[in-house]
């Protein structure tokens, strides 16, 4: 592994801060899995240190070790020059390490302020200083560029991006010297990411170190100073310069192979394909209004738009998970009963929802039962489940999507974030789904698996399945879709064949008036 000996940080970066955190040979095992297998990491004050690695490489496990959630089995951690072994998350926070976890850990029924200060509420004589807490929260939210979120609002009522902002506020409510962010941009749209980067720059300027995890290489180039790459729980490269290391290098160190980061070729359009889905005048007040669209058999239609533009709500309404106030959804000519998911599924619709943990997964159940959650009834004989068939189908999906670890009897809870996402999408690749609604299908999925997922979606389309795809990543929409719809403030504002629209145009369309949108929706 001599080539893993990374060149020491080139002095191109201005800041040469002190080393605040050093990990040596850290090992962490779970039953049957060696999640960390000798990790080295060195983080300096005032830098953005990026962690790269495939799904299941051990990134989240590593940061949980730092945050005091897991205890390492072996190895040393040195924090601010001293040995560091946090007994629990509170201890890590006290020591100055704040963490934004990959899976949001907010309490839905508490307010924004209560969540931000959960576990370290400001108190006098045992009574919470609510006024102070609200003021302070408002201040932090203002710093985060989201002064419009009221501190008293229940977290449950916030959209995904709003929740992400609240977990960020929680991290900032501590006086942290190191802030760890585990895929913070996965739920954020383009403009929100820019905002996040502005915040990060503000933090590093104060000498705060940031560990940043993302599967989007562009982001790492933009915000990162140095990169450490993990593979199968081991550091395969440390302290690479984030800006100048070639993409090929990064990808091959992550995956051990080279992957062309491109979209598969679109299949030639079938002329006169049957119209599968027709949506007319669909409306839900406050979410979207008068939306009409259609999807043909074998066609991939992409919806671009900001988080909060009503895209997810639109998909859920088409699927019957929300009841439309006006308008109709027709599947193969037949009107679907509004507000009935069962009717939609029977008509051949399938939807991979936006939030895997709360909307899609039974965390304690085995992987295969999660994969077959919507099809186990089809495999059953007179009401008796067919475990053999279910295992076989789940194994097929696991192979197709490169699930790791491959044992489909493990509990979904033990999978890494990206692998959980594969389970959510994989569910609808089974059965006779004729129209797939995909809401952010590649959220948290790594570069390699992403290419495989794209290929699977293309193959399905080639077999005549219609796909309606929502994604915050404009290149993904443009790369995958045959036809692109642009949504803004709950309305369809543009429609074009994918070949006749480029990224800048989409961004312009999406962003126009975005400030007002956010005030309404977040």
């Amino acid at each position, binding site marked *: 592994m001599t080539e893993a*000996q990374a060149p020491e940080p080139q002095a191109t970066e201005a800041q040469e801060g002190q080393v605040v955190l050093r990990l040596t040979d850290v090992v962490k095992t779970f039953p049957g899995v060696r999640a960390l297998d000798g990790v080295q990491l060195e983080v300096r004050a005032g830098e953005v240190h990026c962690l790269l690695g495939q799904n299941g490489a051990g990134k989240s496990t590593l940061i949980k070790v730092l945050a005091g959630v897991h205890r390492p089995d072996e190895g040393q951690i040195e924090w601010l020059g001293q040995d560091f072994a946090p007994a629990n998350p509170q201890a890590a926070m006290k020591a100055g390490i704040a963490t934004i976890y990959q899976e949001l850990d907010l*309490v839905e029924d508490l307010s924004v302020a209560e969540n931000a200060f959960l576990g370290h509420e400001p108190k006098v004589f045992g009574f919470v200083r609510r006024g102070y807490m609200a003021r302070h929260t408002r201040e932090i939210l203002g710093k985060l560029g989201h002064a419009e979120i009221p501190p008293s609002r229940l977290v449950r009522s916030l959209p995904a991006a709003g929740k992400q902002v609240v977990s960020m506020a929680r991290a900032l409510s501590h006086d942290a010297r190191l802030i760890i962010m585990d895929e913070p941009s996965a739920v954020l749209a383009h403009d929100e990411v820019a905002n996040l980067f502005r915040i990060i720059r503000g933090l590093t300027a104060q000498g705060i170190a940031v560990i940043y995890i993302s599967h989007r290489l562009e982001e790492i180039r933009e915000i990162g100073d140095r990169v450490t790459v993990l593979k199968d729980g*081991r550091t395969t490269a440390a*302290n690479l310069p984030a800006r100048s290391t070639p993409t090929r290098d990064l990808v091959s160190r992550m995956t051990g192979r080279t992957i062309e980061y491109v979209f598969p070729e679109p299949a030639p359009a079938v002329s006169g394909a049957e119209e599968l889905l027709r949506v007319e005048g669909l409306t839900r007040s406050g979410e979207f209004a008068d939306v009409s669209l259609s999807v043909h058999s074998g066609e991939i239609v992409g919806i671009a738009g900001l988080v909060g533009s009503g895209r997810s709500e639109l998909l859920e309404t088409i699927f019957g998970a929300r009841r439309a106030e006006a308008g109709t959804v027709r599947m193969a000519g037949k009107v679907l009963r509004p507000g009935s998911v*069962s009717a939609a599924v*029977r008509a051949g619709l399938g939807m991979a929802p936006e939030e895997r943990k*709360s*909307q899609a997964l039974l965390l304690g159940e085995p992987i295969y039962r999660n994969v077959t959650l919507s099809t186990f009834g089809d495999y059953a004989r007179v009401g008796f*489940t067919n475990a053999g068939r279910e295992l076989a189908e789940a194994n097929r999906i696991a192979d197709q999507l490169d699930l790791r670890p491959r044992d489909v009897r493990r509990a979904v809870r033990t999978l890494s974030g990206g692998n959980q996402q594969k389970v959510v999408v994989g569910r609808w690749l089974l059965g006779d789904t004729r129209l797939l609604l995909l809401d952010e299908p590649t959220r948290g999925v790594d570069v390699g698996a992403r290419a495989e997922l794209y290929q699977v979606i293309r193959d399905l389309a080639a077999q005549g399945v219609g796909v309606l795809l929502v994604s915050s990543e404009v290149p993904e929409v443009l790369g995958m879709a045959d036809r692109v719809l642009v949504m803004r403030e709950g309305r369809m504002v543009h429609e074009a064949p994918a070949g006749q629209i480029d990224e800048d145009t989409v961004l312009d369309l999406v962003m126009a008036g975005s400030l007002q949108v956010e005030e309404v929706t977040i």
Partner: protein
Amino acid sequence: MTATTTAPVQEPEKHAAAKQSWWRDDSTEQMRRNLGLVGVLAVLIVIGIITKPELYSDGTWVRNNIFTILELASVIGVVTVGMTFVIIGGGIDLSVGAIIALAGVWSTTLATQDFGPGGMIFCALAVGIGVGVVNGILIAYGRLVAFIATLAMMVAARGLAAQISGKQTQVSTSSFINGLAANDFLGVPVLVYILAAVVAAGWVLLNRTTFGRRTVAVGGNVEAARLAGINVKRHTLLLYALSGLCCGIAAVMLTSQANSAQAAMANLYELDAIAAAIIGGTLLSGGRGTIIGSLLGVLVFSTITNLFAINNLSTEVQNMVKGGIIVAAVLIQQVQFKSLSQFFSKNKITTS
């Protein structure tokens, strides 16, 4: 910075995964829990042997005592099977005792007894299912909280039972019904056969059918179940109907034990059933639980009762010990929650 660590870890890793999947059908954790309950049973029996060695040296007495324990467990065991399904499905049924009373009283009115034992059994089952369906409609379609809806039903059904019986004890004249508790078949009491049949049916239903799978899905994550195309409302209704059916069966069994029925029968059975299910490892917030665990929970309780009976101890002491066991079981469960966030996410599911 040496990134080279031991390479050949790949092999044992695969090995461990394969080994684990070997006996992982019912989740190792649940198996450990069940073994723990078997251990508790063993301890109780040993206590019995130590305190009453003269009884335990008599082979026929031991045999008969085992059947006494099983008969003691039979009625509450049947109720607990239904309760286990409801709790795994994310609900709770506080009305089981009241349903038993109503079904028992209704099936022993003079008018019903005219139809003979068949009519009485049919009446008990129909009343049980009927009340369960009402519970289910209120909860699934009326969007009442299960706790409140079944609490209301608990009060109302007992009231109706008292009304029908005129607060009198209604004697069953059917020798068939009364014989269920009195008679043996191949040396084993008939009630024990009924318990075995219900437990076996419950096990198959939970572990081998789509109904069971849906129950786990609905209780584990309602939103995920709904978005996977499961008809959550209908399933919830069916769960309460199933619990009602179990209560109907239990009403027949209890009537046969007493040769009569009255509005006060099966008092506090809801607490016993819930406690047995929880001790058996059913998660009160739903999504996890086993029939075997619940059965063991019931057996632990009836063995304790038996232990106190053969030692001539008061029911007061007995209740105190029972309470202690419930607390201990819940404490053990809470240790399972690894982190606070997990705890909250579990709670979120039940409150939504």
